[in-house]
């Protein structure tokens, strides 16, 4: 009797243990095998380190790594720079796999190209956190981004309201063939379609830089004497457009944009009617944090959607008050802390 009781309890214990491990397995993040121990080596596969947005983003990653080093969770940050070439980025990610880093965080140079090498990393139990420019494959631990289509749709809504539902507009896009630029434009399309009184005079495709956007808009200004608004789908593009209007002595019109410091300062200086959102630079810090969370056995959702903050005439002063802490050609991002990261990871 006694022995059978103990047998039953042993079975019960065993069952509990089984349920325990099963739920633990379900809770572990994707790609994780639970065989990696802290302190971890983090690989940051940067696609292009030169743009200011990237430098600021790398700054938040380094700050986060310093924080995690203090906690004994991270030992080393390895950084590569593919100089804009998706092929080089693949080669560098392969090197990271070869050197057996514990986590790879990346901004993809192409939404399709790194798919196979990333799947390789995932299969080897490396935590792969992809943010900003996303890959198509789902063989990653987590993807972190704002919603680019929502970005485009909200911008289009603001602009159409601002010009009273009718008028002639320019559309400024990022480079052709790039997913982010394509998605923002795609999001704007249904809103533009629903307002037949809004005419698109012309569209541009330029790099996300002030100078090429300014040049492209200047050319369009000669061709179009009447422009009622500008749907700009990037912060530096907006600054370029405002400068083009200014240099040609044209009256400023409602314009959308991003948290680029130069654009926000022009907005204030020229008393524009504007709207902006942001791609927070702390996505880099958050990706680093999420990687370590996954490596330490915590669950990390497959997709973390970051809400798009809105900057308009009511709160632009809050952003400009912090301007001097950011580079002149940089982006004024919202503050972040571990509490925010935990909340973002907890959302379903």
């Amino acid at each position, binding site marked *: 009797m006694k022995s059978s009781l103990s047998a039953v309890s042993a079975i019960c214990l065993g069952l509990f243990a089984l349920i325990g491990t099963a739920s633990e397995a379900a809770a572990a993040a994707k790609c994780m095998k639970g065989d990696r121990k802290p302190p971890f080596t983090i690989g940051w596969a940067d696609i292009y380190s030169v743009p200011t947005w990237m430098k600021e983003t790398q700054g938040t990653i380094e700050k986060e790594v310093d924080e995690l080093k203090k906690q004994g969770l991270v030992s080393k940050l390895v950084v590569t720079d593919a100089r804009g070439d998706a*092929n080089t980025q*693949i080669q560098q990610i392969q090197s990271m796999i070869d050197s057996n880093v514990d986590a790879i965080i990346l901004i993809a140079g192409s939404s*399709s190209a790194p798919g196979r090498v990333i799947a390789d990393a995932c299969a080897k139990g490396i935590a792969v956190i992809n943010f900003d420019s996303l890959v198509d494959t789902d063989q990653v631990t987590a993807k972190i981004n704002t919603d680019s289509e929502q970005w485009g749709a909200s911008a289009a809504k603001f602009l159409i309201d601002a010009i009273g539902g009718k008028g002639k507009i320019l559309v400024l896009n990022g*480079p052709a063939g790039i997913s982010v630029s394509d998605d923002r434009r795609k999001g704007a399309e249904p809103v533009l379609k629903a307002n037949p009184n809004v005419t698109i005079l012309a569209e541009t495709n330029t790099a996300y830089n002030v100078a090429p956007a300014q040049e492209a808009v200047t050319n369009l200004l000669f061709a179009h004497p009447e422009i009622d608004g500008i749907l700009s789908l990037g912060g530096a593009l907006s600054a370029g457009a405002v400068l083009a209007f200014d240099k040609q002595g044209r009256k400023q019109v409602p314009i959308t944009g991003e948290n680029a410091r130069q654009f926000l300062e022009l907005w204030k200086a020229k008393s524009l009617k504007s709207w902006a959102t942001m791609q927070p630079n702390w996505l880099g810090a958050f990706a680093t944090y999420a990687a370590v969370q996954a490596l330490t056995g915590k669950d990390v959702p497959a997709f973390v959607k970051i809400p798009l903050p809105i900057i308009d005439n009511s709160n632009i002063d809050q952003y400009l008050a912090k301007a001097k802490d950011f580079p002149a050609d940089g982006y004024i991002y919202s503050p972040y802390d571990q509490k925010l990261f935990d909340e973002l990871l907890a959302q379903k």
Partner: protein
Amino acid sequence: MSAAGSAPRLYWPAQRQRNRGVKGLLTVVAAFLALYAYLFPGLISVSGVAKFSQSWLPLVLVSMAQAILMLAGGVSLAIGAMVSLGAVIAATTMAGPLGVAGGAALVMVAGLVTGAACGIVVVRLGLPAIVVTLAASFIVGGAALLILPRPGGAIPAWLSDSLAGETPVAALLVILAVVLWKLYLATPLGLSLYAAGENSVAAYRAGVPVDSARIAAYAVSGLLSTCAGLFVAAQTGSGDPVIGEAFTLNSIAAAVLGGVGFLGGRGAMRGAVAGSLLLSVMINVMYFLGFPPVAHYIAQGLIIVGAVALPEFTARRSSP
């Protein structure tokens, strides 16, 4: 009998002559490969060779594509766009009704026809190659964006796995490309290549088919570029309309690093191949040395200058 006897006697001195220009580069490349194998012992394994040759293969092909034009006295700024074109054609056709064979045939035809078209414009109309191929880069790049407006498409998984899996197929393809190049040089068009590039007027007077040789060089260059695109598509499992951009400059860098001159008829293909190997292995060595990215830029520049300058130094030492 005597003719057959004299051919090998001429062959090896000619090979030594060609090796002389690239000796310094080959030394540097060998040193870097050794360093890479020391830093990453996993390189010396089947999958290590497989993975490295996969990274290297597209660069070899585009470097050969650029070198053949430079040997013929031309140059191409459309290499990158041609790679993109090859990649998007492969990614949009191979998973469809045309199948892998049909898609591959289409990629090759597109490369040959586009390359030959550039060649005909350059050679028959006597326009500068740099201008024609710059224009071609816009046209071909635009066509790639029309075929596949954003990254996507698909390559059958078995093709990706066989070309860019754990087996060193890519290394065999490098060898195949070099063998095919040797065979090409033995054809009348290949034989005329150096002559047409070095002194086209003298070659023409000597009865060399200068125009055909140069147009053929453009066609072969186009073929190599789109095939590089096909491999990139297989390696990545998909197509990307702007994936090739960086190859234009890298192909020129590899060829120049390999001692292929801009003025035509100077240098050898082995130089371009070695140059591309150095550019590729350098990326991995820098990573394993743990240099920060900014140091990569500087170190790469120094290594390239060093590899080009080394033969100059040794040449001066040996002939005071």
